[in-house]
């Protein structure tokens, strides 16, 4: 198999055709934006059942410059890469036609993230084509980079799982945590996590200004986190008043005392060569810890930590844009690695300051 480096050399000037399924949705729209700015992709199709034949700009005002129109998902052309940004259950139902249409399939849903049918029975309502679970590669490039080159069925890691795993995994890698400790994960998320279908709970009136526990226990992302970390976590999610953003605060209690230096060492080792992780832990100014709005629109994750001297607790903070590092950005990042493109291709936007509540 070609190494990543070879692949890069070979493909840097290449342009592949791409289709986005579920392109009228939130993560689908974000994929359209990223592919439009990507040097190695050309958008062939963008599907929507509701908006078929309408311009992309009629749904996504930032794409008003595009001439493309949505097409029906039943009319798939042959392309190099297909991104599926559909609700849970759709990809597993259509996976055969997706793979027929494209050599590489990148799925943003949870349909191919877990390893075994048994896990889908436990956390979801089973799985209709478990035969693909083995083949599918879980994509959270900072943790699973080496499995990606050449992968042709990719399951992009979920938003809350990504935020959590980026915060916690350096502690396991550095031997600070082992898996037997209590791990509390308290997550705060924006409204775009809910997808584009309207409901009373997600209306502006009811959802403004809230701190709403929406998955106090039993959140499905626990399965994903456990799958990667090999240990279960105590996970609760709260909806807060922002549109983009997921922020995880992990409270952990190592068995042996650690120092601030140990923590810096662990996190720098984990991330110092990573293009998309920024360590933000203390320091001065207004932005001292990870903050979702500092990464909004970008593929960055901010990760930071603090040490509680009184009780040996470590608090880890992690912030991402759920539509970028938590889904569409992660999917493009994974595709870049799978196909041998420049890792950061199409993902260069650095974000805005000042910015309100993106």
């Amino acid at each position, binding site marked *: 198999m070609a190494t990543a480096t070879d692949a890069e050399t070979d493909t840097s000037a290449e342009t592949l055709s791409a289709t986005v399924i579920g392109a009228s949705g939130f993560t689908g729209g974000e994929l359209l934006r990223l592919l439009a700015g990507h040097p190695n992709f050309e958008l062939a199709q963008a599907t929507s059942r509701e908006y078929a034949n309408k311009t992309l700009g009629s749904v996504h005002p930032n794409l008003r410059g595009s001439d493309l129109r949505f097409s029906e998902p039943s009319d798939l052309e042959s392309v190099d890469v297909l991104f599926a940004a559909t609700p849970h259950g759709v990809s597993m139902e259509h996976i055969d036609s997706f793979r027929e249409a494209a050599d590489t399939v990148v799925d943003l849903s949870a349909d191919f993230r877990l390893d075994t049918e048994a896990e889908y029975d436990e956390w979801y309502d089973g799985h209709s084509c478990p035969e693909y679970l083995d083949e599918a590669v879980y994509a959270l490039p900072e943790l699973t980079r080496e499995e990606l080159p050449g992968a042709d069925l990719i399951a992009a890691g979920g938003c809350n799982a990504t935020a959590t795993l980026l915060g916690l995994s350096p502690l396991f890698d550095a031997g600070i945590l082992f898996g037997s400790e209590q791990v509390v994960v308290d997550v705060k*998320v924006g*409204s775009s*996590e*809910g*997808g584009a279908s309207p*409901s009373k*709970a*997600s209306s502006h009136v009811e959802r403004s200004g809230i701190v*709403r526990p*929406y*998955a106090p226990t039993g959140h499905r992302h626990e399965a994903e986190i456990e799958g990667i970390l090999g240990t279960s976590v105590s996970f609760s*999610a709260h*909806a807060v008043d922002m549109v983009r953003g997921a922020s995880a605060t992990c409270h952990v209690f190592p068995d042996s005392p650690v120092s601030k230096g140990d923590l810096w060492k662990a996190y720098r080792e984990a991330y110092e060569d990573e293009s998309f992780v920024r360590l933000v832990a203390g320091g001065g100014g207004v932005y001292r810890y990870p903050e979702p709005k500092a990464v909004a629109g970008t593929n960055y994750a901010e990760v930071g930590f603090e040490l509680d001297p009184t009780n040996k607790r470590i608090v880890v903070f992690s912030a991402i844009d759920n539509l970028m590092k938590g889904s569409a950005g992660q999917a493009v990042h994974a595709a870049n690695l799978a196909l041998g493109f420049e890792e950061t291709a199409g993902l260069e936007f650095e974000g805005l300051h000042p910015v309100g509540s993106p």
Partner: protein
Amino acid sequence: MAECVECGADVALHDDLEAGEIIDCGTCGVELEVIDVNPPVLDRAPELEEDWGE
């Protein structure tokens, strides 16, 4: 009056209660199905797996 199966509080019932009706407990808010009316028997209503927050 009937007892809520979730929280144990008294639930006030209206006069023309009918089996199959769904009411909510005034204390814990859980949705209760009227299983029987005479005497009144309540049980947790089947949960709609709706995505109520996100």
